């Protein structure tokens, strides 16, 4: 499919959607570069699936401009559908058709020539380790296999952009890990991937860039570490001391320590300045004849950051951008 390569794979500008007067998407704006694997992260009901449904032509928007590989979604929906592959949250292939039959039928719907359909179906079954299940009806496959085959079906027509809606939801650890490897592989072959998830580990493990969507608004954007750094200005130290000390003592004798909590046998300290705090902890432990077992910087995790954003947003300040 010929498209102009200087254009973003996905371009969303001021997207708005209301359900019975309640805003589901409130001016969402973002771009996804060609070849990028972007995580669209948010809690349930944030508007992730609504965004994908609008981008794939399943739902009308109220306002905003949307383009996939430079093609306007509203003006040329059928052409956009040829450019994209969509993996919905629920695996929705035909239960009565075999794995291979499903792929062949999808190939027919996407207008692939007969000879190419069979070739691609076999190649994809092999790529997703499903060749031995090619003649089994979809309904008889395990949940993990169904998920893999649903992703495989979205790739039959070699789309430029793949939308993955919660691809690992409900899968066991091993199946989820296998699936993430497939997603990484698909992206490495040049397909742009927009992955919606509420799984923070998945987002930070797979994606170079993350958008955080809460209540229909994008509240943060960047890599996992950038988001954490930008949003959590307070420095954090993890300190393990030998001997009995409580949080109150630490806070009393270390003015740079704003907050302290015990996690197992290690104190997690929120500090104003890392260097001053370390000096104060060393001085404190010398005075008390305590030994410092270890002291290290504790960068907030994406989960910490995400929770903090949610709390800030629930508090009503709308969250930082």
């Amino acid at each position, binding site marked *: 499919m010929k498209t102009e390569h200087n254009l973003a794979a996905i371009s969303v500008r001021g997207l708005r959607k209301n359900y019975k007067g309640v805003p589901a998407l409130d001016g969402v704006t973002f771009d996804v570069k060609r070849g990028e694997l972007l995580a669209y992260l948010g809690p349930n009901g944030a508007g992730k699936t609504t965004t994908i449904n609008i981008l794939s032509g399943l*739902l*009308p928007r109220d306002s905003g401009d949307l383009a996939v590989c430079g093609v306007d979604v509203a003006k040329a*929906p059928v052409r956009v*559908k040829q450019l994209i592959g969509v993996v919905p949250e629920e695996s929705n*292939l*035909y239960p009565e*058709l075999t794995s291979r039959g499903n792929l062949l*039928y999808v190939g027919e*719907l996407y207008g692939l020539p007969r000879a190419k359909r069979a070739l691609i179906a076999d190649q994809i079954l092999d790529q997703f380790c499903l060749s031995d299940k090619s003649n089994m009806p979809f309904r008889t496959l395990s949940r993990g296999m169904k998920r893999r085959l649903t992703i495989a079906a979205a790739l039959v027509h070699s789309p430029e952009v793949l939308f993955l809606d919660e691809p690992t939801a409900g899968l066991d650890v091993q199946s989820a890990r296998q699936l993430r490897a497939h997603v990484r592989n698909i992206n490495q072959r040049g397909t742009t991937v927009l992955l919606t998830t509420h799984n923070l580990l998945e987002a930070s493990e797979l994606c170079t860039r993350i958008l955080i969507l809460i209540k229909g608004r994008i509240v943060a954007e960047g890599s996992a570490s950038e988001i954490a750094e930008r949003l959590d200005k307070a420095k954090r130290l993890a300190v393990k001391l030998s001997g009995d000390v409580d949080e109150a003592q630490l806070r009393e004798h270390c003015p740079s320590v704003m907050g302290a909590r015990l996690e197992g046998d290690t104190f997690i300290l929120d500090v104003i300045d890392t260097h001053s705090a370390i000096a104060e902890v060393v001085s404190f432990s010398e005075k008390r004849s305590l030994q410092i077992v270890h002291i290290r910087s504790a960068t907030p995790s994406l989960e910490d950051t995400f929770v903090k954003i949610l709390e800030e947003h629930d508090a009503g300040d709308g969250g930082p951008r």
Partner: protein
Amino acid sequence: MSQLHRALFISRKDIRSYYGKPPLITWALLFPAVLMLAIYVRNPENYLNSAPGIIAMTLLFGNTSMAAIVLTFEKRTGTLQRLLLAPVSSGTIILGKSLSAMLYGIATSLVLTLGLMLLLGMRLASPAPFILGLLLGGGIFSLLGLTAAALVREVFEAMTLMNFIRFPILFISGVFVPIESLPAWLKPIAFISPMTYVVELLRLGASGNSYFASPLIPALISLAFLAAAWKLTVFAFRRQAGQ
């Protein structure tokens, strides 16, 4: 590859997946066959007068039911979403779905017709209007079934909605009583039913007798009903698909 090709693929897949099931075929054939047998037992002299009406009824029930069941089933399993995500227009999906239902209805009606010809000696005076009646009736009734399915979520809701339409249609369309024998107050109502024209085309084909002297009038009016049913189905389908 054209949208027409894709409509044919949708149709072929539906025929393989849904319409070839033995329970469906036996249901579609046994119901009208038993009804025909009852009419034969009651009135062995003139039972063939009722044959076109029974064949039209087979089309009406077979096509509306199957089109509605298939679409609501695919809504529930989520497989309809797969069609909506593919690069096919609403018209292509409707054409594919209605073609398969239409073929099913026509096939069962033809088997019934053959049975009547072979077992009870029915003759086709003029096959062309008979076939035209089956084609136009099959198209109209399939589209009505799809419209009902587009408006609701569950199979039973579609069936309930269809029954509100089908039974009054049976009553007013000269299925059991020819139009000329209908009471005066019912005749004008009969002319607003698409079934009336389908029955008359089949009657013309089977016996050569009809309320209409020429097959042209019922054929053209049925064609207009088909166009209206197409518009209605596309509207209902796009509305439910959010397009």
